[in-house]
């Protein structure tokens, strides 16, 4: 029987449909009408056995009477399914960052999540990229190739923007600033990881895990290999499908 997992994030919606060994993945932007976007992804077919997660989970819970779980549980389930030895998950998404510590049985031991603001999230990187005139893809590449890095002190998106602007006007190489921004976000993630007393193996999921500079910087800061799943953005939807 088909099992459907739907992850409605602040930036994108992912759907995973499991049928035996067959895995289907679908994705689109959340946009302004997420309910319609979900309908489109499902080709108008309301799934029989489904679980919804993510920031917008309550919407489908109400509209379609689907059961819901938090992203935290969904990510834990998805990661444990892919690799049962995983002990820590870092998920940097569009508007929040989460760290989940797993026990040997895949149960959640402890989690941390940023409160209220977009500091240290995908949205923060996006804002800083646009501030420096990079596309999101070029932003990561610029940080990778930078020879130096500058310290970014503000983690508030609004203050960081003025900090970055003032660095630019002082003639600082924007590649170095890009690296500094990545390091600031990674630093924040490391603080959260330390709070849950993280252990290896560490899985990095969520949209920002596709950014190679972030992976490289995290590996250097933590001095470990960071595992990135093949489809880091689909981990939540996969977990939800498994829980359906």
């Amino acid at each position, binding site marked *: 029987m088909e099992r459907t997992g739907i992850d409605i994030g602040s930036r994108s919606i992912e759907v995973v449909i499991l049928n035996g060994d067959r895995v289907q993945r679908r994705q689109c932007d959340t946009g302004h009408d997420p309910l319609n976007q979900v309908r489109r992804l499902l080709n108008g077919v309301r799934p029989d056995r489904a679980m919804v997660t993510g*920031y917008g989970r309550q919407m489908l819970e109400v509209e379609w009477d689907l059961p819901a779980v*938090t*992203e*935290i*549980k969904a990510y834990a389930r998805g990661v444990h399914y892919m690799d049962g030895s995983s002990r820590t998950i870092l998920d940097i998404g569009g508007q929040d960052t989460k760290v989940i510590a797993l026990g040997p049985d895949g149960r*959640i031991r*402890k*989690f941390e*999540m940023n*409160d209220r603001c977009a500091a240290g999230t995908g949205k923060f990187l996006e804002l800083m990229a646009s501030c420096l005139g990079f596309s999101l893809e070029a932003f990561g590449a610029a940080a990778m190739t930078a020879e130096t890095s500058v310290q970014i002190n503000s983690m508030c998106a609004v203050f960081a923007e003025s900090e970055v602007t003032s660095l630019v006007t002082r003639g600082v190489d924007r590649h170095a600033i890009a690296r500094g921004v990545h390091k600031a976000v990674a630093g924040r993630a490391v603080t959260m990881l330390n709070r849950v007393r993280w252990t290896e193996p560490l899985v990095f999921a969520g949209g920002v895990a596709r950014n190679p500079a972030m992976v490289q910087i995290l590996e250097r800061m933590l001095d470990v290999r960071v595992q990135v799943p093949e489809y880091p953005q689909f981990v939540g939807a996969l977990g939800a499908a498994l829980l359906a």
Partner: protein
Amino acid sequence: MTEKYRSMWAGLGLDLDAHDMLMDVLGSLYAETYLKQPHRAEGMEYFDFVMSEVHGLRIEELLKEKEQGRKVVGSFCVFVPEEIVLAAGGTLVGLCSGADFAMEEVEKVLPRNTCALIKSAFGFKLGKVCPYLEVSDMIVGENTCDGKKKAYETLGTLTDNLYVMDLPQVKSEEGYDLLLAEYHRFAAQMEALTGVEITVDRLREAIGMVNAKRRALHRLAVLRETVPAPISGLDALLINQVAFYDNPERFTKSVNDICDRMEQAIAEEHRSGGGEGPRVIISGCPMAVPNWKLPAIVETSGGVIVGEESCVGERGQRNLVDAAGATLDELMDAIVDRYIQVDCAIFTPNPDRLAHIEELYHRTGARGVIHYGLQFCQPYIMESIPVEKALEDRGIPTLRIETDYSAEDVGQLTTRIQAFLEILK
């Protein structure tokens, strides 16, 4: 609340338009948070009624008491001893501090980075919307945290009837002596205010009245240990909140009445009150009316709150005063013996609080602890980190929350609380 109180409110100097706005918000928040709860414990009608008349009938009663010569004393803290106020012929009421109001005005006199509770108290004063503040003959401030003690310096410029009580920060012999000296000074102040001498008989009677109230609240706390909980955490919190406003004797009777009904419901296995989801306790900063944000998220997410390690809860109400003393000095010592046990985070060190959290956790059969810290409340936020670590080292799942009275973080909080409850299932 209706037209009939408008002249009373105007007489107290309230800003009627602003007050109408506040009452509208409070009314709809109450309906949304409280009246929509499924399976409420039977007997909550009285407390619903008190809440619906919190700025009406109760204020009218206080004004009548004043006509008969009683004095009304307003306070912001459980360290202000109700026994002494009652013995001197006064009535003690808690002052409003549970909602954001007139924040632009507040931030003219207080820094932005001040906790929501202090800002709220100022908002009610500057916005002229708290009838309790205006009906009070004396407002008692107390040197608990730095935020409060410095804020009272400013509050003193906004009102002419502020009295500030000093409090110890260490539970040493010297700390005990300081509290005793301050309670004697407060007793003298009360006598001067009311013109009534505090005699042994009067003080003993007052101790009995307050003990009876605390005994009733303790009975409620014990009933919440039952599985499934006979009352929602929201409703139990409300009762603890009403304790600060209501007439003490009527309140005691009402709490005992609802406890009788709960006992009966439990005996008959009649399903009411709290749900069957994961049981949690809340520990940390006090929740004043109408600050129901966190418990509302917990309980609409399927959790059941079975205890509050809080000043609006067990920390503030547990322990009785020994009324056996034969002299005033003995009774005053007994009062200090009881109050010095309040394990507020202003004390250093404060190991009793951790012990109480653990005790409450085990006693209520809770599966986790949610530590509630108000942003910028240094004492509790500082304690939250070692408390979380100590609890987790003992295998007690703990979620540390830091928030304020605004609704902007409700989405994030909901996710965190739901994930925590998922872990506890």
